[in-house]
């Protein structure tokens, strides 16, 4: 089962339970880190205590590395998770207003809740102020609407903005964070008038921490995506030779089509152009490159269904069959002929030799019938689509 586990494995009600458990971890860690104290939070802005920066960046980097690795392993479909959309102006102005609120109030919403819970009176007042602020915003919304909605860029990622690959970005951000940890350490020691440790005297656990953060970043850097790995393997001759593929003859496929066997997917893995030019009736087109797209999962994974693949080259069909098998899709067959050969065999009238055996006579009769019926079926099918594409819904998140 590929995560996120909502909405398939975790329904809405259980999801709320998950929220409580996640929140418990969140609140516990914030309190343990000292974020219930406004002095510790304000310290980051005056250089005497960089705890906020350390916890924040370590958490951000850890989560980024974890999510990316889960994605690489194919355990998490990162295309489904909520990515905060980018609205250029409101992100900047909102951020700056929050920064001002941070330095004046000494908390942010999450930390103020934690502080209020353990009895910090100033935190309780801050929570009240924040609620009031949300209300004021609502009342002022007609005035702010323009800024709020301006420059909508959708779920834009930071590596796209920087023109980097995801992998390079992950490595750079990890190094930037580690660099910031070292730098702020020296600033903090100086502000507090303390001696700084050197590389020789530093507690070894901090070096270990640095290594622990860099290793996943490097693993990410050198690991191709799961889709890429499978696609490469599917084009590896050795891999293909190790697999036994099952085949359909043109006659068998034609027979099944004429029976209008609904328990069969006939899949054209060629390009869309080739498919549009000529295709086998009842078939639908999924180009080889798109075969791993999860929107086809529901169609292809039904255990009661047979998946018959065809292409113009047996190798291409084999690659497709390999991918489907690796994705654990059931009953994969390859049409033992190209699209063209299928038509040559079935659709071209030919004279039966006088010496033809029983089987050949039978084939001849069958193909004569198919020649009439297949175009009729094809004509009929033009009216309605045959593939059911199930687009997984992106998860709603965020704070609005």
């Amino acid at each position, binding site marked *: 089962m590929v995560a996120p586990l909502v909405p398939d494995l975790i329904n809405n009600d259980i999801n709320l339970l998950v929220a409580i458990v996640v*929140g*418990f*971890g969140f609140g516990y860690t*914030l309190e343990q880190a000292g974020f219930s104290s406004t002095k510790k939070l304000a310290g980051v*802005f005056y250089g005497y205590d960089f705890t906020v920066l350390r916890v924040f960046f370590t958490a951000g980097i850890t989560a980024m590395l974890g999510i990316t690795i889960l994605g690489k392993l194919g355990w998490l479909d990162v295309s489904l998770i909520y990515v905060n959309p980018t609205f250029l102006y409101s992100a900047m102005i909102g951020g700056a207003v929050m*920064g*001002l609120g*941070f330095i004046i109030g000494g908390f942010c919403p*999450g930390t103020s809740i934690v502080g209020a819970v353990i009895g910090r009176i100033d935190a309780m007042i801050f929570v009240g102020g924040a609620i009031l602020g949300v209300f004021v915003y609502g009342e002022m919304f007609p005035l702010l609407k323009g800024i709020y909605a301006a420059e909508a860029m959708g779920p834009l990622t930071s590596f796209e903005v920087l023109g980097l690959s995801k992998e390079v970005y992950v490595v750079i951000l990890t190094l930037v964070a580690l660099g910031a940890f070292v730098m702020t350490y020296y600033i903090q020691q100086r502000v507090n008038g303390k001696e700084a440790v050197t590389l020789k005297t530093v507690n070894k656990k901090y070096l270990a921490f640095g290594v622990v953060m860099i290793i996943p970043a490097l693993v990410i850097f050198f690991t191709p995506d799961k889709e890429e790995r499978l696609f490469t393997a599917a084009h590896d001759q050795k891999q293909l030779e190790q697999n036994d593929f099952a085949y359909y003859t043109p006659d068998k496929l034609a027979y099944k089509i004429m029976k209008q066997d609904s328990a069969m997917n006939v899949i054209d893995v060629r390009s869309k152009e080739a498919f549009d030019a000529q295709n086998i009736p009842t078939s639908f087109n999924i180009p080889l490159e798109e075969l791993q797209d999860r929107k086809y999962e529901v169609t292809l994974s039904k255990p009661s269904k047979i998946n018959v693949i065809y292409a113009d080259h047996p190798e291409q069909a084999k690659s497709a069959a390999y991918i489907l098998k690796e994705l654990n899709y059931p009953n994969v067959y390859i049409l033992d002929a190209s699209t063209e050969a299928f038509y040559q065999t079935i659709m071209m009238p030919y004279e039966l030799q006088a010496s033809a055996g029983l089987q050949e006579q039978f084939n001849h009769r069958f193909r004569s019938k198919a020649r009439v019926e297949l175009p009729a079926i094809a004509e009929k099918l033009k009216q309605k689509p045959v593939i059911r594409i199930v687009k997984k819904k992106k998860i709603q998140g965020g704070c609005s």
Partner: protein
Amino acid sequence: MNKEQKYMNPYLAGIILGMVLVGSVYLSGRGLGASGALKSVVMQTMSEVAPERYNEVPYYASYAAAHEDGGPMKSWLVFEVIGVVLGAAFSGIASGRMKLKFEKGPNITKRTRVIAAIIGGMLFGIGSQLGRGCTSGSALSGMAVMSAGGILTMLFIFGGGYMMAYFFRRLWL
């Protein structure tokens, strides 16, 4: 109550917090948040105190329509914040920090701190709505999923704080 314990090592706390965030994304497909729950509180209050306004003014009405099923309080973030309350209380009790206390900088009066906390809270409330999330929902969770907007908001929260820090130093130093 036992003696107040030291805070956790910040890097260890960061790793644990990061893992919690990964768990959240793995299970629920979304990150952490806080200000969204405050918004739910405001919306719930509006729906009870001023139901006409809540159902008619476009800003509230669109929220009401989106939360027709179960009302504003039946949201993931509200339940997450219930968890935050429980987790913080557990931690506070376990570490002996659970007590009423008023914290302020050494050179300001209680009254100044109260006013600053209200104004700061209000600014954060407004900013979080404009920025579509606060430090946790927009900045931290955005960073985890490599959202450009999230990182931008984070840079402006901390950048804004640093730029203004000098003018408000009397509050803290």
